């Protein structure tokens, strides 16, 4: 036998392409996927047909037109769809910048699946839930240490929900002081859009600061913006550029000087664990995303978990209840007159709280610092590789190190070749990886945001950079390949028009059938 040739420089990837129909097309009359428990004949005889005796005004006339499928066929369909998806478990997931795509340890998932958590009801007697209350309490204590803040609520369901909770607490704080003329919130364009959007929803006018020539939020612009109307500053640091703002405490002082509060968006905390804390810069509130920095799996977009951290001055306004400890037992402190109330049912996403707690326990103080340091090391390594690629640049802070991520620009490549950043992303799918541009608006032209967390090795980063180099090379030499991508993915280029045209868009199968003239009797109505 001949020796097997070495692998080519780039992986010859092809995504699963099952050519899978829509679920409804798999329906076969009479098939069942799972059977609900039967009602005992004696019980049934005792009460009769309750559903049948409902008044016509509420009794459903015909069963819902759900598909009818055997169990294996449901399983097979969804396993195929799962194979047409890229999880952290099997791709070099550095391309979803700002999302902190790190390894979510399997052991934590396995522990959380125990019925001791999965089958726990939130209203059980406190004596029967001491284990999970202990975990929530201990994670609160850990996040107090990590942020330097005095109190933590783990009730918010994710990062944006934590931003919302923080904005709501800011509103309640000013209201409690009778300081009701404060109707403005200041944020920066490189802070997550939820900062601006939550503030607006909460009734504030939003003032957005743009970066100065060096990429830092503009301190002079802040000074010009603050006034007796300033309720708060909502700011991310490091911002999505990966540039740490070294004058962040001056920003805080300016806002405090005007009587406003300061909330630190710590969604991008992966590079600063154990290095610098919200409290050290003088903040009144901050928030973390447990599904980012603290490793809980992202679940295709949730369930996630958020943490709102505050100083003593804001503590009365925390969502209720607060998980507390009296020296003997853990309990739910619900007697909080000034609380903003609930931000979600019950106490938070308990399974993710458990996973984040387990992750911190597996690392400790030195391990968390190692996470941050390696995330930053990996990022600076990848930046060096990317900047060697023709057409790529990293605007702002020339020659300086970045923290955990970089917002790059393909402006030069785009000018040279006519290929846009989005198209590079479509082509990246052909190599089995993710790629992300940036939030809107594109302040950095033709943006690309990469965040190589601590989870990746030098070889992983080399491979990702090699993919980008290949695509850039194609853009210069055979742009048609990039322009018509994806080629090796599950599907090909989708027609964009229907998504913004009310006459064509279809958010459900029934709408699709109706709008394409295929409405069948089984389709509803």
């Amino acid at each position, binding site marked *: 036998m001949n020796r097997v040739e070495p692998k080519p420089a780039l992986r010859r990837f092809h*995504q699963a392409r099952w050519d899978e129909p*829509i679920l409804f097309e798999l329906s076969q009359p009479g098939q069942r*996927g*799972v*059977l609900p428990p039967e*009602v005992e004949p004696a019980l049934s005889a005792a*009460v009769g047909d*309750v559903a049948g005796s409902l008044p016509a*005004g509420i009794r459903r006339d015909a069963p*819902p037109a*759900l598909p*009818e499928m055997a*169990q294996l066929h449901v*399983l097979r369909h*969804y396993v195929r*769809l*799962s194979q047409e*998806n890229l999880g952290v478990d*099997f791709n070099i997931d550095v391309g979803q910048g700002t999302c902190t795509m790190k390894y979510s*340890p399997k*052991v934590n998932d396995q522990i959380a699946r125990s019925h001791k958590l999965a089958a726990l*009801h939130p*209203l*059980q007697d406190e004596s*029967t839930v001491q284990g*999970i209350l202990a975990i929530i309490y201990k994670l609160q204590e850990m996040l107090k240490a990590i942020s330097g803040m005095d109190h933590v609520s783990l009730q918010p369901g994710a990062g*944006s929900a934590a931003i919302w909770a923080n904005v709501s607490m800011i509103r309640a704080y000013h209201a409690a002081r009778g300081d009701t003329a404060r109707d403005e919130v200041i944020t920066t364009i490189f802070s997550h*859009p*939820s900062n601006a959007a*939550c503030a*607006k*929803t909460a009734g504030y006018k939003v003032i957005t600061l743009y970066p100065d020539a060096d990429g830092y939020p503009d301190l002079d612009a802040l000074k010009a913006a603050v006034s007796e109307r300033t309720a708060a500053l909502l700011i991310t640091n490091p911002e999505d550029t990966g540039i740490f703002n*070294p004058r962040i405490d001056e920003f805080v002082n300016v806002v405090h000087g005007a009587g406003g509060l300061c909330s630190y968006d710590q969604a991008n905390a992966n590079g600063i664990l154990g290095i*610098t804390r919200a409290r*050290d810069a003088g903040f009144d509130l901050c928030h973390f*995303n447990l599904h980012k920095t603290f490793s809980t799996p992202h*679940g*295709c977009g949730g*369930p996630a978990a958020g943490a709102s951290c505050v100083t003593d001055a804001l503590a009365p306004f925390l969502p209720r209840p607060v998980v507390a400890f009296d020296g003997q037992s853990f309990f739910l402190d619900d007697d909080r007159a000034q609380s903003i109330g*609930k931000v*979600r*049912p019950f106490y938070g996403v*308990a399974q993710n709280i*458990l996973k984040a707690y387990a992750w*911190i326990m*597996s690392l400790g*103080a030195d391990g968390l610092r190692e996470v941050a340091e*390696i995330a930053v*090391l*990996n990022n600076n390594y990848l930046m060096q590789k990317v900047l060697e690629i023709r057409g790529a640049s990293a605007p702002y802070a020339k020659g300086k*190190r970045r923290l955990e991520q970089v917002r790059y620009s393909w402006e030069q490549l785009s000018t040279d070749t006519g290929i846009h950043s989005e198209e590079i992303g479509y082509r990246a799918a052909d190599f089995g990886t993710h*790629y*992300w541009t940036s939030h809107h608006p594109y302040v950095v032209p033709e943006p690309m945001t990469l965040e190589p967390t601590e989870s990746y090795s030098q070889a992983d980063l080399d491979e990702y950079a090699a993919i980008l180099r290949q695509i850039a090379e194609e853009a210069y030499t055979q742009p048609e390949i990039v322009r018509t991508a994806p080629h090796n*993915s599950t*599907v090909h280029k*989708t027609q964009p028009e229907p*998504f*913004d045209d009310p006459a064509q868009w279809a*958010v459900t*199968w029934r709408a699709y059938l109706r709008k394409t003239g295929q409405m069948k009797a089984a389709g509803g109505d």
Partner: protein
Amino acid sequence: MTLRPVVYPYIPNSAPEAKAAMLAAIGARSIDELYAEIPDRLRLKGRLGLPAPLLSEAALVRHMEGLLARNTSTREALSFLGAGCYPHHVPAVCDEINSRGEFLTAYAGEPYEDHGRFQALFEYESLMGELLNMDVVNVPNYDGFQAAATALRMAARITGRTRVLIAGAVSADKLSMVRDYLKPDLAVDVLPQAHKTGRVDVVALEATLSDAYAAVYFENPSFLGVIETEPAELVVLAHRHGALSVVAADPLSLGVLKPPADYGADIACGDIQGLGIHQWFGGGHGGYIATHDDPVFVHEFPSRLFGVAPTAVPGEYGFGDVAYERTSFAIREEGKEWVGTAAALWGITAGVYLALMGPQGMTELGAGILQRSRYAMGRLSALPGVTAPFATSTSFKEIVLNVDGTGKTVAEINRALLARGIFGGKDLSAEFPELGQSLLVCITEVHTQGDIDRLVSALAEVIA
């Protein structure tokens, strides 16, 4: 003796050899050089105050299992707790699919590399659309609270009005969240349930309504399990005053109950936790909002809406975001409220559940819960001193029992039940003082006749 530094299994470049090679590659002498931008005055002095780590997986598992052992789960007791978090059977295939790393560890990928997530969530929307008889359903938001609050904000934007009316029994926690979320521009008025029936008080509703209201919100079945048997009357009243009708419906009831659209509701909303998702101590929630396919409504959704479209290849379905420009992702504070990571994996799971159950399963499930609820109400309220205040109405999944006649408080009764291995119903006495000493007993398809009979005998003992 010099200890070799810890190599962390989750951090490949924590190995000294790897770290040294990386530093050399970027021409840095030390990691600290990379933090040059963080001034000393902002640096943490010393180490974080955290517990000593459990470096081995074995030690971690032992520690975590030790903590979890201090919980008693609903598998180790007989639980009748519901009140927003429901014990329905979770088919094995639901857990199988949502545990797959391809879904569990993916995130916000685009349609080409994460086609599977887009198709699965489009199918979720489509299955919910059949259950609800509506053409537009969102990618899940956080939970039923968020769904209700956002549905009301949507109604206010659509009508241009600034008051909403919440009618009938609603949980205090949900009211708390909704009130806070609607501040400062929307006023919330509350109309309690009718004393005798537990349903919305139609006479009071008629007297209260005016042209100031953007929406009339009610739940069907209500938080207290009571079914509105003539919901169309309530919708007509709202419409007569130019208000929209927002109805929260339990998806598990829709095999037997009419969906809100069928009695004229404009926006349906609710929680999907019961659809193949465990109780998770309250960590299993996801919210749905549904409307008809009217662009005026579609443009008011804050959430993602995944749609289907042809691709360049015949026979292929492609997916993408419908009307993305309305979201805060696209236009920040100019978008509709805000959107972020919420509960996508639960949407996929709920889709799997509905595909498994099918039309027959959902019908049987609903019918069975109605029968069990009636049986439980009949037997329990036959005990001396126990009454069912809403016995003249039909209940789904939750029944209210009043124990004033036993001379005992619900707290006392629940303590005694707990000693017998039973988690009794939610104590309503603080939240609904007008109901006296009452509890909310949750009965689903997981409860057998034997379970209900056991509760009846235990309660009989406890109140004797």
